[in-house]
């Protein structure tokens, strides 16, 4: 099947040359890499804001910036991390690259839309960054843009919101592409239950992108109308209802957290069987639980609003639904752990990231349950307990999955191996630093430290201090990981077609893959995690 002599997609000459051959490409692999590098760049921007925030919080009172600057920092940190890093993260970078290959297709269904989606992403990114420097001051509302403050403030909210709107559009196009591709372009023999689980997670994600994103789109648009024309729908001084804004916002933004985590879960479902060298435990349960998370996850948004003034009835219903959505996640976790049983486990870097994913996601998820419990939520809502929760699920969950995916697929994407030792050092620093950074936030959150606070009471000092020190360890870890990978791009040893002896289709073709992926569309007969006879190549 594989033709080792074939020209890789890096070398293939197309219509354009040089930089144009990248930014005008319709090849899903190139678009995937475009996304990967853009996303990593913006991640570094978001992370720099985080670093400054942590520095400010190292001690009570003013440390480095003014309150206004701090408020803009966490707003832009949130906007960048959510809309520019974590939502597109795994689907747009790794999904674009591997979705067609894993189902035996040559490209996605609509390659040109795919390119357009990247351009929209870049425009959104440019607008978000531009909003930092134009207008009166950068937006200072938090990434949630709650009305009516977001209507009243004179900062550059409209532009930032518009950036988020454009990014939503980009996300929708990716979703349209993925669903159509999975429906129409599976290779012969690639039945629904022969698909790798990563595909299932992307499929479920794409549906959320399609159903939920437009709702936030219109909400943000109305917010802009509100600011420019004063239509009044969210403005209490004109009869509007600010709580309704929150409903509309969370109708999208809660499902969005599953847009973030599902692809991460998909990645974990790929990595664990490969390094345990046995088939995944409970394939169908993992596959269906992705759909269950996507559908039940659309019904729980009200758990962000327990103390917002929504009705008591709604509180109770949303709390109940919130607890139900934990069950499919639990099913996944148990199946992953069961996959390890009687395996032949090798602790490579991707595997370390996957196992730590399970640990950190479990902490994040279980604290999510605490927040879902009404009595507890009242106390910890909008405290740093929440901040810790969502960093555990987003960074500890999706972030670790992202880095796991990066190390797992790096040889395939670039045809080079990286230094395993350096990668493991980076992982260890990240893991230790991560817990030092965020665990204290649970503690001070429970003690009553509110979030989005520029300054705090003395009793919270120790927690913040430890946390800030943690952020430095995290920096070290991230730098080690990224520098190692960057070095390996040029200096790494050549990687074979299948360095991990994995069974899914992407490992059956050359590394890096040829332009058209498959010279001949393969006929699929084996299960995705059937390792019999698969060897390192």
């Amino acid at each position, binding site marked *: 099947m594989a033709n080792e002599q074939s020209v890789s997609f890096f070398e293939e000459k197309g219509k354009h040359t040089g930089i144009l051959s990248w930014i005008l490409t319709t090849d899903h692999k190139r678009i995937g890499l475009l996304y990967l590098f853009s996303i990593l760049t913006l991640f570094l921007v978001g992370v720099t804001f985080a670093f400054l925030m942590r520095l400010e919080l190292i001690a009570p009172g003013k440390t480095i910036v003014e309150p206004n600057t701090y408020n803009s920092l966490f707003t832009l940190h949130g906007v960048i991390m959510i809309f520019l890093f974590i939502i597109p993260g795994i689907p747009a970078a790794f999904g674009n690259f591997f979705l067609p290959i894993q189902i035996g297709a040559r490209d996605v269904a609509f390659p040109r839309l795919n390119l357009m989606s990247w351009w929209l992403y870049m425009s959104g990114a440019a607008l978000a960054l531009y909003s930092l420097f134009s207008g009166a001051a950068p937006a200072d509302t938090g990434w949630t843009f709650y009305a009516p403050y977001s209507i009243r403030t*004179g900062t550059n909210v409209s532009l930032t919101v518009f950036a988020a709107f454009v990014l939503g559009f980009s996300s929708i196009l990716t979703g349209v592409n993925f669903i159509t591709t999975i429906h129409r372009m599976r290779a012969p023999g690639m039945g629904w239950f022969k698909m790798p689980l990563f595909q299932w997670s992307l499929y479920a994600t794409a549906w959320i992108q399609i159903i939920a994103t437009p709702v936030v789109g219109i909400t943000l648009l109305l917010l802009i109308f509100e600011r420019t024309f004063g239509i009044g729908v969210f403005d209490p001084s004109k009869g509007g209802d600010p709580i309704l804004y929150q409903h509309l916002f969370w109708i999208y933004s809660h499902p969005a957290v599953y847009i973030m985590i599902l692809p991460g879960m998909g990645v974990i479902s790929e990595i664990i069987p490969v390094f*345990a060298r046995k088939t995944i435990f409970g394939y169908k349960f993992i596959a269906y639980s992705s759909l269950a998370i996507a559908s039940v996850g659309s019904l729980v948004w009200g758990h962000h609003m327990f103390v917002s003034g929504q009705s008591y009835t709604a509180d109770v219903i949303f709390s109940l639904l919130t607890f139900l959505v934990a069950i499919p996640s639990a099913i996944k976790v148990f199946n992953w752990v069961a996959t*390890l049983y009687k395996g*032949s486990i090798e602790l490579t870097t991707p595997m370390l990231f996957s196992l730590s994913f399970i640990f950190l996601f479990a902490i994040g998820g*279980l604290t999510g349950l605490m927040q879902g419990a009404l009595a507890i939520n009242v106390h910890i809502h909008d405290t740093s307990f929440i901040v810790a929760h969502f960093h555990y699920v987003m960074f500890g969950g999706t972030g670790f999955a992202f880095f796991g995916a990066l190390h797992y697929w790096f040889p395939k994407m670039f045809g080079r191996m990286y230094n395993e030792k350096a990668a493991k050092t980076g992982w260890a620093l990240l893991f230790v630093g991560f817990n030092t950074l965020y665990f204290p936030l649970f*503690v001070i959150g429970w003690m009553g430290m509110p979030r989005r606070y520029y300054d705090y009471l003395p009793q919270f000092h120790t927690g913040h201090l430890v946390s800030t020190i943690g952020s430095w360890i995290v920096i070290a870890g991230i730098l080690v990981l990224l520098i190692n990978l960057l070095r390996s791009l040029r200096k790494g040893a050549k990687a074979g077609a299948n360095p991990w002896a994995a069974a899914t289709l992407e490992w059956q073709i050359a590394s890096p893959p040829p332009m058209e992926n498959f010279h001949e569309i393969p006929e699929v007969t084996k299960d995705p995690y059937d390792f019999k006879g698969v060897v390192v190549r």
Partner: protein
Amino acid sequence: MIIDASSMPQTVNNVFIVILAISVALLALITFLMIYFVIKYHRKKNTKPKDIEGNLVLEIVWTVIPTLLVLGMFYYGWIGYKIMREVPEDAMEIDVVGRMWAWEFEYENGMKTDTLYVPQNKAIKLNLRSQDVLHSFFIPAFRVKHDVVPGLENGFLWFNPTDLGSYDVLCTEFCGQEHAYMKTKVVVIPQEEYDSWYGTPADTTATGQAQSDEDSAEAPADNIPEGLALLTNEGCIACHTLDGTPMVATSFKGLFGRKQIVISNGVERRITIDDEYFKKSIVEPGADIVKGYDNMMPVPDEPLSEDDMKAMIAYIKGL
């Protein structure tokens, strides 16, 4: 580490501890299994993996048990919450007004303070109102919190303070520049002391607790000029300083006679600040916006009387 000072913490702590215990147990189980499997089935020791496709019984077990667990958690959380939303009949009501970036408390007898005074062991119901944007009223030591929503009339929370002392009140909904400083204290005093204070507002300094607390500004005392007291109570000085440094808004020092560029209905014009302009700024803050500032000044919840405004003007002119 965390203070418990009302009837609520008991309930909340219980729910918390139960869910925490279950969570820690599950986390420990999962982590233990992962580590155990990784060691036991490491490639070095176990080169021959055994393919297991799945096991229906196990799947059912680990679907049903978590379902029961989470339903239990939900129920427990709900029961605790129910208490928080059902106010006892005999609760004493106090109105809370939130505005950028100060709290104001209005008692049934018409008295106003910027520190909340409550009697010990008595159910207190706070009615929450906002003059401008969202705020959230949070007393960590009492485990209560509720958003203060403009336009929503029936926002409330209640508690029954059990321990004497003064506790932090914080704003937990982002509300702008000084959000982190929108805090005050709730002071719990014995019923008898409270009665005497409540009966004779001027006598506030008599309460021991209140005195010991450095932050607590009292109800207007005699030695404070009336104008200043008004500016403090209306919350003006949350945004306008008295010392000439502009903060969120222009400073009151040297206000009168200052030449200013304002934007009225989108048109810039130059004005000189006089008494008329001052009054208009309060009644209709959005009419003339000082250039370089945002239109975020709230309208007072009850219109200020002519006399009050005069007193303010007199005080500001004297700065």
